[in-house]
């Protein structure tokens, strides 16, 4: 499903002393099946933007078109939009409330008024995607570890089988192993089902590793939009916005300054490893 955003504006606390324009004339097109990374400094409007995509916040002006439905038009059932556009908030484990893991994940599908066996199927599928074992299905979500809670909460959104999945810093506060596991699962999902994924992250490494296209926001505006390797060449521009490039990019830049001739397209550790091994082999020959 495609997402088209046209001239979106949004202001927090309009008419008060605390008025703040969070989004200014945002326009963006996302094709079906893209894996998008959304980066920006804290307060740049990322979270505000993604909440408009599934209709939780209504813009002051502008349009959001999902597929061929302009979602803020009169008569559009926002609940059906929210089933197609799954949104995983920051620290999603704070939304858990049910007695058992299974029931909590079933909350979304139940709200969709699905048949019981369909709900069962979806819940089991979603929990298996995030790697929660069957032995935990009947335990209380509050007895799980932090990482497991996070997975259960993500499964709660996956169980609705959205065609677009938006994740707001899904790995914040997780250990390195946990974050790669979760992001790998999401990447698999993206590849096998072809769903559109928008990943909001502060980790440039994660962006470099998983994402095809990066959208950079600053002060409520989209400042850059392009392929990962192109965006991460703009070190100075990103730093001026309080962002950075992956550490690997810094390494490559430093090496090039000292006479090496490495491609600036390299943004992940694996790519750097390959390039350096080839280079060293060539030198030793």
């Amino acid at each position, binding site marked *: 499903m495609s997402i088209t955003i046209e001239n979106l504006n949004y202001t927090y*606390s309009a008419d*008060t*002393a605390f008025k703040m324009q969070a989004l200014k004339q945002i326009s963006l097109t996302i094709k079906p099946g893209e894996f998008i990374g959304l980066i920006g400094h804290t307060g740049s409007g990322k979270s505000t933007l993604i*909440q408009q995509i*599934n209709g*939780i916040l209504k813009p002051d002006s502008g349009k959001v078109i999902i597929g061929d439905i302009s979602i803020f038009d009169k008569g559009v059932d926002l*609940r059906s939009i*929210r*089933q197609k556009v*799954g*949104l995983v*908030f920051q620290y*999603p484990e*704070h*939304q*858990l*409330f049910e007695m058992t893991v299974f029931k909590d994940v079933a*909350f*979304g599908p139940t*709200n*969709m008024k699905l048949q019981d066996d369909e709900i069962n199927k979806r819940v089991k599928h979603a929990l298996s995607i995030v790697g929660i074992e069957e032995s935990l299905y009947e335990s209380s979500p*509050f007895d799980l570890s932090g990482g497991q809670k996070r997975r259960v909460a993500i499964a*709660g*959104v996956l169980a*609705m089988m959205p065609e677009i999945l938006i994740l707001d810093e899904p790995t914040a506060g997780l250990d390195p192993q946990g974050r790669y596991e979760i992001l790998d699962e999401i990447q698999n999902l993206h590849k096998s089902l072809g769903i559109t994924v928008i990943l909001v992250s502060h980790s440039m490494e994660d962006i470099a590793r998983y994402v095809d296209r990066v959208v950079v926001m600053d002060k409520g505006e989209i400042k850059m939009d392009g392929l990962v390797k192109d965006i991460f060449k703009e070190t100075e521009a990103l730093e001026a916005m309080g962002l950075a490039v992956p550490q690997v990019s810094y390494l490559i830049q430093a090496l090039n300054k000292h006479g090496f001739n490495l491609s600036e397209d390299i943004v992940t550790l694996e790519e750097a490893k390959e390039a350096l091994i080839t280079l060293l082999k060539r030198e030793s020959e």
Partner: protein
Amino acid sequence: MIRDITIGQFYPAKSRIHELDPRTKINGTFFFILSLFINQSLITYGLAFLALSAVIMATTIPVRFMLKGLKSIFIIIMLTIVLNLFLTPGTTVLLTLGRFTITSEGLQTAFYMGTRLIMLIIGSSVLTLTTSPITLTDGIEALLKPLERIKVPAHEIAMMMTIALRFIPILLEETDKIMKAQLARGADFESGGLIKKARSMVPLLVPLFISSFRRADDLALAMEARCYRGGEGRTRLKQLKYKKVDFWAYNILMLYLIIFVVLRFI
């Protein structure tokens, strides 16, 4: 969604009233409220109205913003007016509507009660709108201090109030967040009857309670880690100090009260 609640909200601005010491403002509000109960007449209420308007003008806060606070208690005000209008016993019948009669006494009471209520609320919202919560509790603590001799835990009361006030916006934000997260999972908070609505609150209330307990726990731990052990011997960053504005404010307050008392006995 729920950020529209204005009661108890602070409106930052630069004005004479904002500059006043919190103790001055608390005393001022207290005596203003008291004055509304001392004397009921057109002249005194006119005077109170003038005084309140002057203070509101001095705060530089838009009147519209102030009136917004009244919206949430509009029903209470209307109820007070209507009940007093119809149920006050009196002799001079002005109008009869079926079984109900409006007497001139009823009209009078309804008018006084209504205006009193509105002025009470606006008067106290002037206090909270112009005083940041932290300064406000500092003021309360200072005013309660003399009562420590009779074992009133002034510092503890003030600290509890500070924490409670501090937590209001956090809890509102948290509610907003959880609500959105559950909406994203297809929750429905609006439709259905009373029971269905109450049930739909469970996905909101359970996480809210859990996070409140977690926050309270964290805060207690953080305070303890910084050696908090009550008010004894505790110094503060911002000492309360009366300034020249406060002197004038007290003088004006005195004048206002004297006029009120004089009017009472004429």
